[in-house]
């Protein structure tokens, strides 16, 4: 079997296994398997509007998925994408206020830079704690996620609260700072094709530049990379910061393109879903695009679940989690050996 198929296989198998498990669970609980899955499908791609909603839901997942994937290539976990996303959104809402006098061509890059910077800043907090005090970055990033959520709450109740002072949310972003809608009356916005561009940029960085190569080598085998003359610790730090910046950008784009303001519970766990996206995407930018689209479709379809099939929309997170668990199982050496033992390998040696 060719290399390409071998790489995609665990993800596909995981998908099938997860769906089968969910179907089984639904059947046991007396739910309707058929209407659940058809509700999801129709909800995701049933008509043009729904397809654009899938694209809209895919957008933040793609940016954050790329962020997590980037860090993974260097051998680092960025569990803090959630918090970096929120900081990026906050920064956009804040800086955006001051861009009323500018043309969109200038305003949008400015708020995007603010979002990038905020994400990078939030990531650097965890990085500094790690470098200077040896704090485990998995725990520190999770703590920072919670702190970020509370920070958002504080800001929308306080300093960034809308001028009317009625609801806990920021003012609407000035029109100059909003990403233009591409297909009114749908919500498809410029951020979506930009996400694809981002995937391309990440791909280019990782696979067509020397810096990206050094980063991937550090993650693939830090010992060999050290022998080769690469400064592995430095590469890992850079990857982590870049990852944070990208996650921050995701937040900014979500504000600028869709919500146009920040409010309580702004993120529906994008940062954590991003981890699933990065893993299902098997760490290739193209794979992450497909995974993000798939998960985005699930999110878009989730809305119809309650209406059409009487199942809570949260079922989608169960699907996502189950998929990742199966993927984790199928990716282990034990499973790989079992699989290879059943198949004659035709890779020449």
């Amino acid at each position: 079997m060719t290399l390409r198929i071998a790489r995609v296989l665990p993800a596909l198998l995981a998908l099938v296994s997860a769906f089968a498990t969910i179907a089984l669970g639904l059947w046991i609980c007396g739910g309707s398997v058929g209407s659940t899955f058809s509700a999801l499908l129709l909800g995701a791609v049933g008509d043009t509007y729904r397809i654009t909603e899938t694209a809209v839901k895919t957008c933040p997942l793609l940016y954050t998925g790329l962020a997590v994937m980037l860090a993974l290539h260097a051998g680092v976990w960025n569990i803090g994408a959630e918090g970096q996303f929120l900081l990026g959104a906050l920064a956009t809402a804040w800086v955006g206020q001051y861009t009323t006098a500018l043309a969109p061509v200038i305003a949008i890059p400015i708020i995007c830079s603010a979002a990038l910077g905020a994400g990078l800043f939030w990531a650097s907090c965890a990085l500094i704690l790690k470098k200077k005090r040896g704090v485990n970055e998995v725990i520190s990033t999770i703590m920072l996620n919670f702190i970020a959520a509370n920070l958002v709450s504080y800001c929308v109740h306080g300093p960034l609260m809308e001028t009317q002072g009625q609801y806990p949310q920021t003012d609407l972003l000035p029109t100059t700072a909003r990403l233009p809608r591409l297909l009114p009356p749908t919500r498809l916005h410029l951020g979506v094709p930009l996400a694809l561009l981002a995937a391309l940029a990440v791909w280019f960085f990782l696979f067509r530049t020397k810096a990206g190569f050094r980063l991937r080598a550090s993650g693939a085998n830090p010992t060999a990379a050290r022998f080769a003359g690469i400064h592995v610790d430095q590469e890992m730090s850079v990857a982590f910061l870049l990852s944070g910046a990208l996650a921050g950008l995701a937040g900014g784009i979500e504000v600028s393109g869709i919500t146009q303001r920040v409010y309580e519970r702004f993120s529906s766990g994008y940062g954590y879903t991003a981890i699933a996206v990065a893993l299902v995407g098997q760490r290739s930018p193209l794979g992450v695009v497909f995974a993000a689209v798939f998960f985005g479709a699930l999110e878009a379809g989730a809305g119809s679940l309650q209406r059409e099939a009487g199942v809570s929309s949260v079922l989608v997170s169960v699907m996502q989690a189950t998929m990742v668990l199966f993927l984790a199982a199928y990716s282990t050496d034990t499973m790989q050996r079992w699989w290879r033992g059943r198949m004659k390998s035709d890779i020449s040696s």
Partner: protein
Amino acid sequence: MPDLLLREITKAFSQVLAVDHVSIHFSAGEIHAVLGENGAGKSTLMHLLSGLYQLDAGEIWLNGKRQVFSSPRAANTAGIAMVHQHFMLVPPLTVAENIFLALPGNGREWVRRSALVKRVQALATHYGIPVDSPDAPVMTLSVGAQQRVELLKALAASARVLILDEPTAVLTPGEVENLFLILRRLKDQGYLIIFITHKIPEVLIIADRFSILRQGHLVTTREVATCTASELASLMVDEQGISSSRPINPQLSTNEVSPQLHSPVLSVEGVSVQGESKRNVLRDVSFSVNAGEIVGIAGVDGNGQTELAELLIGLRVPVQGTIHWQGQSLAKPTPAKIRASQVSLIPQDRRQEGLALTLALEENLLLNISLLSTLTPGVLLPPQKVRHFAEEQIVQFGIQTASPTQLAAALSGGNQQRVVIARELAANPKLIIAANPSRGLDIGATHYIHQLLLDRCRYGAGVVLISTDLDEILTLSTRVYTLYQGQLLGPVEPVDGRQTIGQMMTGARISP
């Protein structure tokens, strides 16, 4: 009184006979040394005895009863205990607790510390194995003290046969003396002590009998009293050149190599390197390499070779002495800076240190920072250049692969090594550090690599060849040093030097 008989013990790993019909009759009350070079089969044999591996063929008889050991625990129950080179002690637990864990009993058993300490001290006195602080965490003890804990652990668990794997590898000379005192006392009490080593002086001091293994089969078992050091050395390292299964290529000649003296590409002066537990793993090492010559560094694994290679590429810092690469000494040497001075390294463990197995072949060919910058100046990594370079190397070095995009993990060992060598040589180094470059390779690949190194020399590079393969050293080197316990002995001329070098490798000779 243990009486241990091994009859036609055989064990193979993927069709290579690691232990080939070995028969030895050990008796109680003796210290029996098992000698051999790297890969002779000594460790495998002992792992079979201690239950870690299972026999393919042959029998083990203990005290007249046939034994089958399915696990180390089974061997322990039968009274055979192994003290590994890397201790099996739980570092933060105390001496008493570690010994407690080796005693039989169930999970609920209470740890009565004061009673345990008293018991440990009683054991220590009984066996004559001094243990200073039974309450101290094992990791705070010196290496010698830790080894004594391992011995006590084995004895407390009622072992009658003790197998010690290279026990003096990590000890200071003083600690070695203490160990030998203990071993003699145990021998007098009727224990059987099997002692794996490659160091001849120790065998002469401590052992009653010895057995020599070479390539898995038993060469001989004799009384130590009937043998001299040089006889032992020549038995271990065969004079007729059949200590390895690979004949030397008569077409390879070092005549074409003409060292250019007084233009050293590497100069090491009085360098000492500290390992863990502050022991000097390299002691006052001095040598230099001129352009056009191959300096061989022979020795049995574990005498400082790993540290020397790491030192030369900048991954270790000496506590004493200086190194000049191409006449430059660096204040804070890093692999990047050293490689920038046209130095390449073929590391001894290609899978751990030389390749990123999850990356493609063509990417692994770029895993060298100075090669990267010469090949592609600038920020970008143009795929055509990468592909073209890979295809060139594949042809030039005869790498067998389906395509340059194949993952390094899918290549055979020989081809993996070719990738490493292609990469390191493509950087046009003036100094090549080659650590066991033909390890695990077949004859064809080995000859190919040897020819490559000789060619480079002819064109003015200098090579440091660190190898545990004496034939390789003798074939290629202009001069040969030997690493023994961190000290550099020699130099010796390779012509007719086999015996001398063999003696140096085993400690039978400390000066030329």
